[in-house]
């Protein structure tokens, strides 16, 4: 990623941004986030197929935001997250510069978020074949079978909230699970507590989740929790004609439209 390194260096040297968020080599075969604040650190930036962590999660992190204007090396899922975050007023052109990375690993620098949105809108969010197959399988199960599947899958969950921590959309300072008046979700990890947490998480992400799999990748126990958000995406397609993050912010689940098919509000 010679272009990225060069551009990051320039951006820091000219003080165009204070920090460039990208990837560096981690331990073994892993990669990790890198925050370039000094030009000489730009050389550590890498990009390859292993770089899948959704870096948009750091845009809303207090310690990073405080540094000043950010630039971010953004793959398609990261760009989608950024658009969604922008529509929720978490980020804007004044504090973020997007260095897009295309599927062909080409660097595109966007002048503003509108350009990012235009780029993002060229592609539909598509659930990958393996997970699509899994969703179909789940759909064909009886209710009892599906219940058993989820009880089994969620049983090992110890509620470390890595799924929440890794998700760019879970930026709330106080998550629903942290409220105790009333206690919406049980704190301990047990059957009910785990179920409620994961269902609540999926519900809060519906119409916001851009299907990056960060939650699944973060789960130390590789619980396929992304199937829940993927199912919601499928349902969004069926009932609302699909979901695409947009700066307009007409959120799928919270925006009323006169042609909504539900009639309870008419």
């Amino acid at each position, binding site marked *: 990623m010679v272009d990225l390194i060069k551009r990051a260096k320039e951006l820091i040297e000219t003080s165009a941004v204070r920090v460039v968020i990208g990837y560096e080599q981690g331990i073994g075969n892993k990669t*990790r986030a890198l925050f370039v604040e000094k030009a000489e650190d730009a050389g550590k930036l890498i990009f390859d197929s292993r770089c899948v962590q959704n870096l948009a999660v750091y845009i809303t992190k*207090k310690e990073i935001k405080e540094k000043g204007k950010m630039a971010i090396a953004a793959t398609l899922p990261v760009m989608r997250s950024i658009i969604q975050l922008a529509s929720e007023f978490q980020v804007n052109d004044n504090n973020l510069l997007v260095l897009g990375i295309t599927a062909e690993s080409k660097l595109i620098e966007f002048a503003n978020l509108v350009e990012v949105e235009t780029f993002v809108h060229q592609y539909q969010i598509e659930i990958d074949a393996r997970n699509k197959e899994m969703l179909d399988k789940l759909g064909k199960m009886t209710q009892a079978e599906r219940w058993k599947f989820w009880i089994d899958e969620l049983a090992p969950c*110890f*509620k470390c909230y890595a799924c929440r921590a890794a998700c760019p959309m879970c930026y709330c300072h106080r998550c629903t699970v942290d409220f105790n008046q009333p206690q919406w979700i*049980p704190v301990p*990890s047990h059957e009910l507590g785990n179920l409620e947490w994961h269902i609540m998480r999926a519900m809060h992400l519906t119409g916001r989740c851009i299907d990056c799999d960060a939650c699944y990748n973060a789960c*130390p126990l590789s619980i396929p929790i992304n199937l829940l958000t993927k199912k919601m995406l499928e349902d969004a397609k069926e009932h609302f004609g699909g979901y695409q993050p947009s700066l307009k912010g007409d959120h799928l689940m919270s925006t009323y439209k006169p042609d909504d098919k539900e009639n309870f509000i008419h």
Partner: protein
Amino acid sequence: MNIDKRLVRRDSLEKLFDILKQNSKKIYAPFLKNGKTTFRDAESFAMISTGHIQTTESSKDIAFPRTEKILDYSKGKDGLVVKGIDLENLPGVILWGVRPCDAVGIGALSSIFNWDYKDEIYNSRLLQVTVFGFSCNKSDEYCFCTSVGGTPGNTAGSDILFTRMGEDGDYLAEILTDKGITVVLMAPDLFEKSEIAEKEKFLAVVPVRFNNKEISEKLDKFFESKVWNDQSLICLGCGACAYVCPTCACFDIQDEAHGKSGSRIRCWDSCGFSHFTLHTSGHNPRAIQSARWRQRIMHKFSYMPERLSVFGCTGCGRCSRACPADMNILENLISIQEVTL
């Protein structure tokens, strides 16, 4: 004490498993699901995972469950009735396939749960556990047991330690405690007299990477260091590291009501969470992630050694393997050792 060493043939392990099962022992063993290994109640020998270097989760759940009742209550016409939990009829458990860096963690946990106040819930559970340690013949870049006083064949914490003598070889069994002897007596034929004294050559080689005593002394004056911020910038603030750790013991106490009755529950908690120290007033003594990361390292490498005379880290490397942001504790400890104040 002269440790009793026995030979267990490679095909005898399954027989041992079956005999223990017949003696109605619950056996918790590594179980592979979704590519990760956790300890589960093993119904058959074939279910046990063996290919892993280290289990994803530690086995601390057995004596310190992620969620456990500490009392039950009910409000009826006789008024309020509160009952403690029955600690006398806990089932006997064999913890099978525990790595030495996991077994040694029991010592650290026991120190926490018996510091002045004896936690009989933990102690009673532990009393029922017999630990079958399995030495390591493989290691990876996350392992650093030898830097924190352990070895791949460390006997501490195990009741019996099995060391496989070569790939597909037989096992050397070191019978370390009375609980271990009880197991041998259940299946005496499977534990043959052995002349083998040397297990070292079958063990993984884990190089020493830092000096934990030096780090411990250094940390004493390290509270205000900028390494905490540098190291924790990538931290996402989840609890994965704490929950897979064999020695992390921080917990929460929660009440759960179901109508007129309910329970008080002790459940795992983590110093990495922003709400861990949050006061109801909104004040938070550890308001930023770097302060929470510092607490994690300080607690394990400074506070515990000083207050409890035990290190809060066994070098198992689980936290680094589990970290969704690839924070690496070994790397960070080495950098602390190298930084000048």
